[in-house]
């Protein structure tokens, strides 16, 4: 009996050894092949998922949806590693009073269908967006368009007049997508326009295939692209169930990892690891329309004291995050004020602020594992302070819609964009209705504070960056004191990729994700 078992074990071990040897051989062969055959097209595969049809009107309002659209549609300026860089606009002039912007366009820019791009297209795009707001609407402030007029000076010069001189206008105009006049002028309902013509842009990639049900996209490099040469020939998004497993098997070329498995990749020459800046985060929004008692600053402060952000960072984010700043702007933001009030976890203080009141709130969350775990910890620690939390978990898109409509008491939401221009404080804490559908553009229902509103307006018209920075610093202090919502933590996750396969990944100056950066796929220094 025993010798039989022994034989079997030996056979299994031998088979295992043979397998590893075979795997080892094929591995080294693969590396050699890659080096030799540089003429082979570069195919980059990324994690898929349905983020909508990538036109400026029908993509989903989150990062992965936005960037799939920006691969096709260019803007006047582009976000580089240090700041805005000339893109479709070669150079620009701003009049002294800050009311007139003149953009000189690049020459020989072609649409994917071969038509030349001209100043007419720019004028058309701006006017079209005023009538039909796109998903990410950059051309409004407080729901009103700030563009007074757009004039075509000649085929490659556009002259834009704005209503008021504002600090943020160049970035906003620069970020608006340019769409082809000859196609969109016939379209009355852009949200329903999703024929192949709708994805004709001037960008470096052409959409070849989109399968909604699989969440699969396939892009090919545009041969007549006006700008830096695309380094990637085919860019595809494929459905994967577990991204780390898929990366390990070589199905996808880049993935996010937690510090738990960092050691597997760090110090291994086959892989390269990068750490994301903390521009993606979770926050807890109070709906003061639904629950008027949340207008009481003491109660909001009790929440802030009763939440152990460090525990969340340690347990849910596995230490790959920084605790949120009560002043909203995260540590990595260029205008982060480290002097804002810091609510150290303190149950006794929270209890003292509540003065023995017992409360119960419904907390709406998405269904990602991290959100469920955050909610679980929040529930435990808030219960200690005497605040009962009933957690309701729905899928991400339902939650996003509820946030848009203000259909919640307290909501936990996570999104990017925390590194954007500090004007985001205005859209967050002092805004009126906007047509922007991005989840990072949601205000706090029922909240209004004179002082905050005033400072937000001031920073908007302050053209001197140093003075504006002072205002933003003050604003953060005020926000931290008022705590109308609670930033929980900002993730600083790691990404890992195989440099021998592709090594072009770069960050935008204000964004957390390299795959969202158009320049990652282009030959730019």
């Amino acid at each position, binding site marked *: 009996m025993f010798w039989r078992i022994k034989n079997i074990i030996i056979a299994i071990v031998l088979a295992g050894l043979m397998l590893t040897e075979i795997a080892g051989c094929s591995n080294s062969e693969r590396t050699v092949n890659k080096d030799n055959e540089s003429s082979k097209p570069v195919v980059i595969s990324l994690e898929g998922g349905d983020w909508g049809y990538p036109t400026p009107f029908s993509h989903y309002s989150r990062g992965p949806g936005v960037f799939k659209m920006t691969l096709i549609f260019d803007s006047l300026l582009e976000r580089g590693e240090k700041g805005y860089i000339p893109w479709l606009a070669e150079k620009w002039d701003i009049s002294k009073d800050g009311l007139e912007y003149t953009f000189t366009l690049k020459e020989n820019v072609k649409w994917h269908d071969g038509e030349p791009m001209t100043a007419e297209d720019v004028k058309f795009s701006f006017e079209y967006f005023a009538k039909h707001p796109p998903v990410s609407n950059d051309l409004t402030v407080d729901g009103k368009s700030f563009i007074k007029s757009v004039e075509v000076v000649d085929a490659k010069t556009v002259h834009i007049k704005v209503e008021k001189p504002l600090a943020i206008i160049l970035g906003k105009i620069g970020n608006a997508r340019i769409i082809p006049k000859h196609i969109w002028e016939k379209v009355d309902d852009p949200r329903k326009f999703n024929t192949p013509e709708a994805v004709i842009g001037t960008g470096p990639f052409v959409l070849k295939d989109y399968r909604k049900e699989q969440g699969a996209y396939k892009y090919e490099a545009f041969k007549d692209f006006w700008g830096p040469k695309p380094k990637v020939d085919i860019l595809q998004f494929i459905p994967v169930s577990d*991204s780390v497993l898929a990366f390990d098997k070589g199905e996808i070329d880049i993935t996010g990892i937690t510090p738990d498995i960092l050691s597997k990749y760090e110090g291994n020459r086959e892989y390269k690891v990068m750490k994301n800046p903390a521009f993606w985060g979770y926050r807890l929004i109070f709906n003061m329309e639904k629950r008027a008692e949340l207008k009481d600053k003491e109660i909001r402060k009790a929440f802030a004291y009763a939440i152990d952000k460090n525990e969340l960072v340690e347990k849910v984010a596995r230490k790959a995050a920084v605790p949120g700043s009560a002043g909203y702007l995260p540590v990595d933001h260029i205008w982060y004020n480290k002097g804002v009030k810091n609510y150290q976890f303190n149950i006794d203080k929270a209890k003292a602020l509540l003065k023995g009141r017992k409360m119960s709130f419904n907390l709406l969350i998405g269904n990602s594992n991290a959100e*469920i775990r955050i909610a679980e910890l929040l529930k435990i620690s808030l219960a200690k302070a005497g605040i009962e939390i009933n957690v309701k978990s729905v899928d991400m898109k339902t939650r996003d819609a509820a946030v848009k409509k203000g259909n919640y008491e307290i909501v936990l939401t996570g999104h990017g964009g925390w590194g954007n221009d500090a004007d985001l404080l205005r859209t967050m804490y002092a805004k009126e209705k906007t047509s922007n559908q991005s989840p990072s553009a949601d205000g706090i229902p029922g909240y209004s504070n004179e002082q905050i509103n005033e400072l937000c307006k001031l920073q908007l018209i302050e053209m001197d960056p140093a003075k504006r920075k002072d205002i933003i610093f003050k604003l953060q202090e005020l926000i931290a004191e008022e705590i109308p919502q609670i930033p929980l933590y900002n993730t600083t996750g790691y990404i890992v990729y195989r440099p021998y396969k592709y090594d072009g990944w770069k960050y935008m100056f204000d964004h957390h994700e390299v795959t969202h950066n158009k320049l990652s796929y282009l030959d730019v220094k």
Partner: protein
Amino acid sequence: MEYIKYKRGHSSDIQRGTSCKGVSNNIIKKFSITGKIGITIVFLFLLIGIFSNCISLHPYNVPSGSSLESPSLVHWLGTDDLGIDLWAQICFGARVSIMVGFGTALLAGLGGSLIGIFSGYFGGLTDKVIMRLTDMMIVLPDLPVMIVLGAFFGPSVRNIIIVLALFSWTAPARIVRSKVISVKEEKYVTAAKSYGANFWHLTIRHFLPNILPIVMVSIIQLVSRAIVAEAGLAFLGLGDPTSKSWGLVLNHAINFRGIYFTDYWKWWVVSPIAAITLLVTAMAFIGRDVEKIVNSKI
């Protein structure tokens, strides 16, 4: 345990009844070794479920250590990412699983046999309608519909029991119906009828003693099915998010990014899977033995 008591109770019923006199009082003696092991395991899980608060040193819902500790003397099965003791969660999960398993099985078994008796006894149109309904339920793919219903009714243990029972009553109903049809034709039943016995009298005096053994078998089979289905629903994130059932523990473990490249799966993934497998296998052993005994004695 419940079931054993039940079984004993009913075996005396059977003795009082007319058909199967030979069933012994001590039914456990009839069980094979595997059956006995099965009973022991189920009994242990039952104890664990009932006394979960006393058995585990730590609470099942509040962190008691740092996150992802490996198994040690303090945390027998280690901790999960939040630092909650896994042994405590498994103990508490036993309660959920057993509640769902037996709850569903009893509800479906009793409801199903009642429907079966009606159908078999009255025949005719009633029978046709009920049987076509069971056909329909059998044809419906249960998991997708359960997912939809689970999402619709909202996740809670009670709803899950109801939804699972809704999809499990057909098997006992059909078995009971055929049995009732055959018993109905027995001479003593016809005799009782001719003396004026009504439906309820017949059911209690004659049908129930006859169908109880076979209902028992199908209830035991339903238990394992329900346990697996609950774990499956919870694993898909459709269970009660606060119930801490085994499926949910597994759900959190598997959704932990890159779990297979760490050591954590060794305790975090393995322990709920082991618990589910153990309980379901034990139920299967019992089910097989009970079936054997019932078949040989009827």
